[in-house]
Structures are given as structure tokens and as C-alpha cells.
């Protein structure tokens, strides 16, 4: 079972490799990937360097091309595919049909991983992508329960990768317009969810407020913590109600350590750590814990138990410092 870690820059890439990642995923410094934040990601020469570095240690490196080419600007995405092929990168993570088609036709030996942004949650969708583009692997959206993941793994025509840890996206990914409804930009169109230039942190003296394009997302007393303002994790007032509540989801993050045996037994090929936008320290901390957990499990599957120090270490770097199993847990649904 592969441990796949995020790299927003070279320092994070080194942190991931040093802490025992089997593979890393990264993106170019433009809108061809959905973490298009200022100061993040790789130029073409940096990408070449990163690939050489990872390969010299026997690790894999995947290029994330998980946005949708804009009409008239498709060349930028096609060139990114060409670059990955030239650099002998180990896979492309792609969501768009035309881009899958381009890569499949031009570089049939370059493995294609279906991005979570393609939102494939069932056998029919996976079969479509397998037959049309010979994808090797698909990343499952964070909307399936563990039973659904297991059932799908039994019949899937491709390898499956799941999110193991990090920010919790609660919607069918790649098909969520909440960010663009408020800001005009979504992961699909603008390269990020809740773009930072629309975010405002306010302090009224008594209250702290977070806004996204002026829309009030959350409000808390001065001594409480507020999460980064994304629409799905705001506190709103429901019709016929008085109090503001987290009507969709509270600022929690995903932690599936306790599901490690179930995921391994289901034959999941890769565990993905979310967070290309996070610091090298986060990458290092999370990678270390998951490396240790996977190795412990593999050494003796039947006696695996979740060690308290793992969860403690992960809790420190979690959003809102609260973790959940998300949709993997039936109760959550």
C-alpha cells in the first residue's frame, strides 16, 4: 500500500521523502492544478529537479493536472502533459476528458490516475474511464462509506486511491460550485477553492469574523478559533430557526488511521495525504506518522492497534484540531 504525500514546494518534497513517502504529488505554478495559490508549486525547471530527486531515492512523483482546460487556452494543459512525459514522471493525475484523451493518445505508456475532481464514485464511471482512456488508477471522492469503498474495490477495473488524512471536502469533488457561487472562482475554473484574495479575517474587538467576498462565513468570540473560510464550513441560520449552526460541516479534518486495516484488506493501492498548500513541517509530521502506521500494520496485520501518539501528533496539525472519519463512517452520512 503506497503512501502518497503532498508537495507544495521543494522543501515539502524533501520533507515527504525524508519522512518516508513512497510517492509525492505536485503541481505546476499555474492554473493547471487546483491548488493554485501564490508562492506554491513548481516551475518547469523545479519540476525537473523534483523528479530527479525523487527518482534518485527510488520514489515516484505524480503531476497533478486536475483542473479543466479553458476554451482557447488548452495548450497550457497539453504542454504540461508533454513536460511530464519528457521528465519521465510516474503518473498524471487528471480529471478532464479532453486531457485524458490527449495524454492517452500521445503518451500511452504514461500512467493516468483519474483525479478526485472527476468525481467517479461507482463501477459505471470507473469503467467508462478505464475503457475510454485506459486509466491505471482512480482517486475516490470523500463521499463514500467504508462499506461502499470495500464493495467498489471488489469490482473495480482499476487501482483505487483514497484520501487518508487532511482537509475534509464533504461534497462530491470536482462538481462543487460553492466557491464560485460566492467568489467567481472554483477549483475547476480558477484553480482553487475559497481563493485567498477573497478571504478577510476581521476582529471587531468582541468578535472574530471570517468573510469570503464579503459574505460572512463564521463568527466567534475572541477566545475561540475560526477555520479558514470555506462555504461548506460556515455557520448559518436555517429558516424557522434562531441560532447559527454548522449546517453543512464544521471545521474538522479527515483522519482515517483507525481504518488502516480495513483499507489494506480492501486492497486499496494508495493512501493519499491532502495538503499541498500546507507547510513542510505539516508534510513531515503527517508523513512520519502514516509511514510508521503503515509499517506497523504490514509487520503484523492482525495485532495492529492505533497508537495514541500517532493521533496526538496528527491532531496538532489538523484543521480545527478536530478529526473525523468523514463519510467513511456510516453514521456521518
Amino acid at each position: 500500500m503506497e503512501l502518497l504525500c503532498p508537495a507544495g514546494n521543494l522543501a515539502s518534497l524533501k520533507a515527504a521523502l525524508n519522512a518516508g513517502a513512497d510517492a509525492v504529488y505536485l503541481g505546476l505554478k499555474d492554473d493547471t492544478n487546483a491548488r493554485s495559490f501564490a508562492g506554491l508549486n513548481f516551475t518547469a525547471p523545479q519540476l525537473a529537479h523534483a523528479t530527479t530527486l525523487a527518482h534518485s531515492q527510488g520514489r515516484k512523483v505524480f503531476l497533478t493536472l486536475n483542473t479543466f482546460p479553458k476554451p482557447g487556452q488548452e495548450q497550457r494543459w497539453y504542454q504540461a502533459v508533454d513536460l511530464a512525459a519528457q521528465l519521465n514522471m510516474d503518473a498524471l493525475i487528471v480529471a478532464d476528458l479532453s486531457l485524458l484523451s490527449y495524454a492517452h493518445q500521445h503518451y500511452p505508456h504514461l500512467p493516468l490516475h483519474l483525479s478526485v475532481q472527476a468525481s467517479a464514485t461507482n463501477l459505471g464511471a470507473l469503467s467508462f474511464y478505464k475503457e475510454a482512456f485506459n486509466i491505471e488508477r482512480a482517486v475516490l471522492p470523500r463521499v463514500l462509506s467504508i462499506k461502499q469503498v470495500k464493495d467498489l474495490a471488489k469490482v473495480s477495473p482499476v487501482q483505487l486511491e483514497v484520501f487518508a488524512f487532511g482537509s475534509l471536502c464533504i461534497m462530491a469533488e470536482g462538481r462543487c460550485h460553492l466557491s464560485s457561487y460566492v467568489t467567481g472562482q472554483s477549483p475547476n475554473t480558477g484553480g482553487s477553492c475559497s481563493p485567498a484574495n477573497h478571504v478577510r479575517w476581521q476582529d471587531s474587538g468582541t468578535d472574530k469574523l471570517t468573510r469570503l467576498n464579503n459574505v460572512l462565513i463564521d463568527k466567534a468570540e475572541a477566545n475561540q478559533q475560526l477555520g479558514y473560510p470555506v462555504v461548506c464550513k460556515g455557520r448559518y441560520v436555517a429558516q424557522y430557526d434562531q441560532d447559527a449552526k454548522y449546517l453543512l460541516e464544521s471545521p474538522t479534518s479527515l483522519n482515517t488511521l483507525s481504518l488502516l486495516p480495513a483499507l489494506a484488506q480492501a486492497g486499496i493501492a494508495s493512501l493519499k495525504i491532502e495538503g499541498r498548500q500546507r507547510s513542510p513541517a505539516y508534510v513531515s509530521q503527517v508523513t512520519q506518522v502514516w509511514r510508521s502506521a503503515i509499517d506497523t500494520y504490514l509487520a503484523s496485520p492482525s495485532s495492529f492497534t492505533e497508537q495514541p501518539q500517532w493521533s496526538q501528533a496528527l491532531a496538532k496539525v489538523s484543521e480545527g484540531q478536530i478529526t473525523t472519519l468523514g463519510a467513511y463512517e456510516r453514521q456521518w452520512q
Partner: protein
Amino acid sequence: MAIRVTMKISLAPISYCWSKADVEQFYQQVASSSIDTVYLGETVCSRRRELKFADYLAIAHTLKAHGKQVVLSTMALVEAQSELNELKRAVNNGDFSIEANDMAGVYYAHQAKVPFVCGPTINNYNRASLDLLYQKGMYRFVMPCELSQQWLQAVLDTGSEPQYEIEVLGHGYMPLAHSARCFTAKHYQLPKDKCQTICQRHSKGLLAQTQESQPLLRLNGIQTQSAAQVDLIKQIPQMINMGVDYWRISPNKLADISLGDALARLLNKVLEDDKKSLQNELTQFAQSNDHLSHCNGYWLGHPGMNYTEHVNHLINQ
């Protein structure tokens, strides 16, 4: 000079959980309206069982007998095997084409050689992807909600005229997201698998406002909608010029049938009339329907929730 307007009015599937009686009453009215095309079926949640597949099929045949073009809509988020089976049943209905709202719908329709419409939750973001789906059997696509007029024009400007039809959501609450979690059940503190289809209480979703009383979202089971209704009535002449084939209404009340009926009659009339009168009549229309919370941001390339009142469009080139 007389011009030929080919744009038609379509009715999206009801996205809410209504009682069987309400749904049947709704489609009785649709049957006698001038609306051209009707999409039918449950697209949000498989727990909603007020109407069974056979009930939808019966309505579809009634509508067809009244001269409607009928398309069977399928689920946007397909997870369980039972949902896949239901999807295959819709694809293999034998009489009607389908609206695929998940790539599984595309896959099974292609396998069965059933022509399909790509609904708004299929990620079509460029011309090459659309052309690829055309090769698989797509004969029409509904533009994803978050895309703009400029986007559509760029798609049309790429290569030759598309071989498939174009449909744009012109009126109604927009589907913004789908989740594994049921937000309506969560609000009533019910587990999803014992939800009692509590979403039936909210015939147009449950409104969620910010702590500054700004309407933001509508919770409709596992679906999250916009709090504001998209309103692109004033943009109809522009869409006609661009070659948009269908102007879609996502209904949330009986009055939406009247709107669709009036617009359909108007568009039919323009066959004998000129565009200037269409523009005038639509302007009045838009104004008389302008009192609710509306938005048109996505079409204009702005945040989706925005509403720009005065939009000047060139009527003709």
C-alpha cells in the same frame, strides 16, 4: 423582417421531494402547457420513493401523448449498487432518451446505444470534451451552472458548428453541490438511513442565511442549491443569437409552469415577428418577475450569487 426562432423552453426535473399527488398534479399542468421539452425523474436522492420508476414512466408516456419531448433524468451522485441498477433500468426504458448526470449514466447509455443529454453535473468544461461525449452518443448538453456566456462563446468559436444541442439553465435555484451527507436530515438530527424523507417538509429546500441575514444556500437533502434563483430572461435574445437551443427552467412551484408556458408562446410567436418586439416583451417580463432574490452572476462571468440589473445586450449583429 421575419426571423426564425428555434430556441425552445425546457423543464428540468423537480429537484425536491414532493408527494406523489403534487408531482402528478404538476405534470398534468405541464401536459397542457406550451413547454416543449420535459425532463423527468429523481436526480438527488434514492431514498425518495414517493414515485417509483413505473410512475415516472407513466407520466412520461402521458406527456409524450401531449406532444412533449420527454427525457428521463438520472441521479447526479451514484454510490450504491442499487443506484446503479436503477440507473441501468432508466437507460433501458425502451422509449425515451436519458439525461446523464453522472459519468455512469454516460457509460451505460453508450453501451446500450441510447442517445443521452449531459446534465449540468457532468463536467463539460471545453469543446474537446464535448466533442468526445458527442462521439459517445451525447445529443445535447446542459451547460454546467458555473460557466459563463463568454465561456460558451469560446466553445462555439472553436472549430465548426457543434453537432449537438446547447441548453442553459435560465430560471430556478441552481444545483451547486452534492454530498454523501444529507443536510436536511442533519438539521433535524436524524441519521441519513432513518431520515423519514424529512426533506419533504421543504418543497423548495430549506433556506440557509448568513449571520447577517443574507440568503446564501438552500439545503435540499444531499444537494446544496443557491439561495437566489438564476434569472436569465433578459439574456434570451443574446442566447438566441448565439444559437442556444433550450432555455431551461428548474421548477419549484406551479407558477414556474406558467412562466415556461408564457415564454414558450412568446418564442413561438416570434416566428412571425421581429427580435425587437421580443426584446421589449421580455424586458417587461423580466421586470414583472424581478421582485424575488435573483442572480445572474455566472452568465456574466461574476460570482454566481451576483445580480446585475441593467445589462445591455446587442440585439443583433
